[in-house]
């Protein structure tokens, strides 16, 4: 029981790391599921059981966290930020960003401050909570796992 749980957790962590690393790519469930040697449906169920949210929800939060980073630390136009984090529609990106963060990308940029902390801490601690805003669940999923 214990070892099986550890193997499952480690497989799911491998998937989560792939989302963290390749968030700007067109990630599909089949590719992620293959990393854990499970079916897409099994991946969604197991990932949610281990981390409390679906891979799609995690991907959304990862992309928005990265967008927040780029807005804080660069002068890139919001359109470029949108494209760099994996979205192709500025309107959809801005709506999602506002829904999760509670501010538009440009307003966030105006008030945010850079941070000197290490990447993995910044990544984890600036990632908007999955429960931050209910509108996140209404967004069209780039990974159809719900």
């Amino acid at each position, binding site marked *: 029981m214990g070892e099986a*749980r550890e193997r499952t957790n480690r497989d799911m962590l491998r998937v*989560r790391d792939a989302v*963290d*690393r390749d968030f700007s790519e067109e990630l599909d469930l089949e590719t992620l599921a293959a990393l854990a040697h499970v079916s897409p449906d099994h991946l969604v169920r197991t990932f949610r059981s281990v981390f409390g949210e679906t891979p799609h929800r995690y991907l959304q939060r990862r992309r928005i966290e990265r967008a927040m980073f780029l807005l804080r630390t660069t002068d890139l136009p919001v359109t470029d930020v949108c494209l760099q984090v994996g979205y192709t529609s500025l309107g959809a990106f801005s709506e999602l960003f506002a829904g999760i963060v509670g501010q538009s990308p440009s307003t966030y940029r105006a008030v945010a401050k850079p941070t*000197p902390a290490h990447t*993995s801490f910044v990544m984890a601690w600036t990632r908007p909570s999955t429960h931050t805003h209910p509108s996140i669940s209404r967004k069209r999923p780039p990974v159809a796992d719900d």
Partner: protein
Amino acid sequence: MNLSYTRLSSIYVLDQDEALDFYVGKLGLEVATDADLGFMRWLTVRVPGDQREILLERPGPPAHDPATADDVRALVSKGAGGGWLAFQVDDVDAAHDELVAQGVEITQPPSDMSYGRDFGARDPFGNNLRIGNVPAAS
């Protein structure tokens, strides 16, 4: 009181032999102490020549009851064990390429950050590692 440096820190590993293979065999650390204390295997590693040691601690009795040990192991395996190590190198990209060649899981490729250049990796158990060239804080 003036504390001079961090002499010993600790992370949880799920298998100490596998940890040795990774931290010594792949990462290039050296064994500082490997002693059977009876109640536990005291296993520490360090950067060659460094005074700072890292205890590779296996969760389990008698420090943990079996249920707690299972919980700790589960947390480590999903990257929530609390262990986190950062190492300094001269050439970040060369270190990255070397670890890739050895099959180490990379969580983030070498990237320029506000504090320096670094990349992310995981040990076999789920612990997070950062390896980079980060100027010392002034």
